């Protein structure tokens, strides 16, 4: 058994920012991560982070209130407006703080942090470091955590939460380097494990973005909120779905169809390529569906050639490298073939604006959480912002909770039982290793990723979704009979990926159930059979609770008050 007052699961931006905050407040905090923290998926973020710094010549009168309005409008009014206000206010000092900690933002000539236009934003307020902003922010926080002396457990796979009498008391984790399960006792736990992109077969996300952290909370009785809202980024590379930043359009890139038209003029005549992602992805998908893809095929072009070599090399060097290495296309010479690709989970573990869940001692922050500040559709540049704002707030709230506890480090009995349960889970999987009736976990994984891609994509409709839900229910049955292929102790990928799969299927089921239930179109959730937003019935959050019979759906009101819901036009 290993004890720390606070256990942070996940070493991406949200987890590190939470840990640094707690450490600052004198808390004994440790981060547990499946990968060395600097390898977390936060580092793949490219285009930037929003804050109303008013540095750009065209944003002199920008304010946090305008940032809040753009965010709420972008969310299709499903975001909680009090949380959005908090985030957009916190944005300004927290970006300066990242800069003071060394984050290498690009600069304007006057030495201030550079900002670029981004989708759905009324002002150029996206602060950036070339097109590698996530990498720069992540390394800055890894460095800050090292400076602060935050303890890291690297290459441990967290398998389950430990809950004792309704209170979170730690986690059980698998030691990838040495083998075996260990109980990490903690008086509070912050889950910061990222999104669930890998439940889809066409995602921009890292391979470790499985949604397993969401599943752990869900299995422990904490509801998942608004999971049906899945963001499709307009511009994933055709072959690999690797992200081509929105910053490419922020710098002036065009979207072009098979007829050579900048087709966004039909869908968002004012914002054009910088419409919010839900609208832009639907526009691209419509062009493709109606036969106006390139050569009538299933993709369109992101054309940067008119920006010129110098601008591409200075502002978008990472995009160019990715296009060359992964698509064989140099954007200076040729347009980039792109498709809408699963990119972000707006939904997640239900929390308040301080990361609290309904379970005492359990907090969540970052993409695995749903505060909600993104509602039905997240604006580009608001996810990096969310990680540091709500990572910090969750770290502070956990520190406050720990300060108020009468006693710490209670009984280890629940943790010991949880370790036994984790071992039994693996023994059970191992008992079917190589047996005739055992299901192939990778066939089930492929079934899930294909089902989610084909049945719960950019456009949705009841009969297609029902067929998809039936497939997921079948996969859920089959997942009970999966067997391991390898039972070794050290760095057992087969075990990790098989255990992960059980959580992924549950998260995918909750996405599916929520999507089928929500009989309206809002943000990223676009139904051809219910094309309009229905505020009378659906201006509310979905809550999914885990039951033996699958997800049980409830709802929760949206916090309004600053901005009246209105029709979105761009």
């Amino acid at each position, binding site marked *: 058994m290993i004890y720390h007052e606070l256990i942070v699961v996940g070493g991406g931006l949200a987890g590190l920012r939470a840990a640094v905050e707690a450490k600052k407040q004198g808390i004994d905090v440790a981060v547990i991560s499946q990968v060395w923290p600097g*390898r977390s998926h936060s580092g793949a973020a490219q285009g930037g982070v929003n804050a109303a710094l008013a540095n750009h010549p065209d944003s002199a009168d920008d304010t946090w209130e305008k940032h809040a309005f753009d965010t709420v409008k972008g969310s299709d009014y499903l975001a909680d407006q009090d949380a959005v206000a908090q985030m957009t206010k916190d944005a300004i000092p927290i970006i300066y703080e990242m800069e003071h900690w060394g984050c290498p933002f690009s600069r304007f000539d006057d030495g201030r942090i550079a900002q670029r236009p981004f989708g759905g934003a009324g002002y150029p307020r996206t602060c950036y470091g070339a097109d590698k902003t996530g990498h720069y922010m992540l390394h800055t926080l890894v460095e800050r955590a*090292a400076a602060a002396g935050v303890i890291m457990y690297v290459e441990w796979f967290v398998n389950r939460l430990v809950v004792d009498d309704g209170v979170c008391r730690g986690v059980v984790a698998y030691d990838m380097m040495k083998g075996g399960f260990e109980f990490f006792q903690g008086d509070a736990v912050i889950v910061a494990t990222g999104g669930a992109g890998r439940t889809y077969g066409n995602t921009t996300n890292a391979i470790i973005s499985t949604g397993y952290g969401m599943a752990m909370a869900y299995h422990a009785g904490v509801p998942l909120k608004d999971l049906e809202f899945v963001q499709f980024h307009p511009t994933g590379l055709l072959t690999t779905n690797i992200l081509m930043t929105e910053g490419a359009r922020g710098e002036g890139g065009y979207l072009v169809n098979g007829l050579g038209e900048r087709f966004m003029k039909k869908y968002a005549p004012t914002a054009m390529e910088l419409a919010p992602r839900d609208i832009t992805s639907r526009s691209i998908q419509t062009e493709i569906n109606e036969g106006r893809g390139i050569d009538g095929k299933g993709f369109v072009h992101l054309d940067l050639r008119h920006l010129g070599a110098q601008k591409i090399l200075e502002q978008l060097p990472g995009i160019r490298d990715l296009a060359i290495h*992964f698509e064989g296309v140099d954007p200076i010479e040729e347009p980039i073939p792109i498709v809408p690709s699963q990119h972000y989970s707006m939904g997640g573990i239900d929390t308040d604006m301080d990361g609290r869940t309904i379970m005492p001692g359990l907090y969540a922050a970052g993409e695995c959480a749903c505060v909600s500040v993104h509602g039905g559709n997240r604006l580009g540049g608001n996810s990096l912002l969310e990680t540091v704002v709500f990572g910090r707030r969750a770290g502070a709230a956990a520190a406050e909770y720990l300060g108020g506890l009468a006693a710490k480090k209670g009984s280890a009995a629940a943790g010991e039982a949880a370790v036994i349960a984790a071992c039994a889970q693996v023994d059970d999987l191992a008992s079917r290793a190589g047996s005739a009736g055992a299901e192939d976990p990778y066939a089930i994984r492929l079934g899930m990723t294909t089902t989610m891609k084909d049945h719960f994509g950019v456009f949705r409709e009841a009969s297609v979704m029902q067929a998809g839900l039936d497939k997921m229910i079948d996969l859920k049955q089959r997942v009970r009979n999966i067997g391991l292929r390898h039972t070794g102790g050290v760095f057992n990928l087969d075990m990790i990926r098989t255990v992960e799969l059980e959580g992924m299927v549950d998260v995918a089921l909750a996405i599916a159930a929520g999507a089928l239930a929500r009989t309206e179109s809002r943000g990223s959730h676009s139904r051809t059979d219910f094309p309009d937003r229905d505020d009378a019935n659906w201006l509310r959050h979905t809550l999914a609770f885990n039951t033996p019979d699958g997800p049980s759906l409830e709802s929760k009101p949206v916090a309004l008050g600053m901005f009246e819901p209105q029709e979105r036009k761009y």
Partner: protein
Amino acid sequence: MPEAKFRIKRYDPAQSADQNGAAGRRYDEFRVPYESSLTVLEGLFYIQENLDGSLSFRYCCRAAVCGSCAMYINGAYRLACQTNVRHLGDGVITVEPLPHMPLVKDLVCDMTEFFEKYEAIKPYLMRDSVEPEKEIAQSPHERKKLDGPIDCILCGSCYSSCPSVWGEGNYLGPAALLKAYRFEVDSRDEAKKARLPSFDNERGTYRCHTITNCVEACPKELNPTEGIQWLKGAAVRRRILGRAK
């Protein structure tokens, strides 16, 4: 269907040397369905999922930004995710873990020492000044000095390739020193002499003999050697003139 032939270096700490030949190591061959977009990392996943569930390797972003999957592929340092099989010729694709590193299992090597050395150079911005209310001003010219070293993904390729690391286990190596350089040239850094002792010593910059393997090995095309030479000069300037940048 066309196939790609993978030859993978294996190591299982649970098996004795007797079972596995010399020092418990061996090579296994696998055939993977070929398509023109196939990457080495995708090939490894195909093998792990379909042919041999016991295969171990590191992975994360599959987009060349996280640094997890640095390996030795056909005798060169490469990121498995960024390496297209199409570009490796028609022969067998030989995949080995980063050379000269302690092994954990198969393609996974022990990076503990690598990261200890990274931490040893105090890899963070140091400042004494009271922070301004807004950003610390930095001109585009000053900021440009950071281009390059800030793109390091700490994959370990340079470290694994450096003969000075092989010969002198104590040597900090190119990645850690490039990180020191990144902060020493940052106009916002006020470490003055606080970081200096971490690299201006017998395990630091002077162990670099400009062999430049690191430059060749780096999958992000960075130049640690150049940064290390700058640090040598900075250390001397600081000792003699007491002047930093």
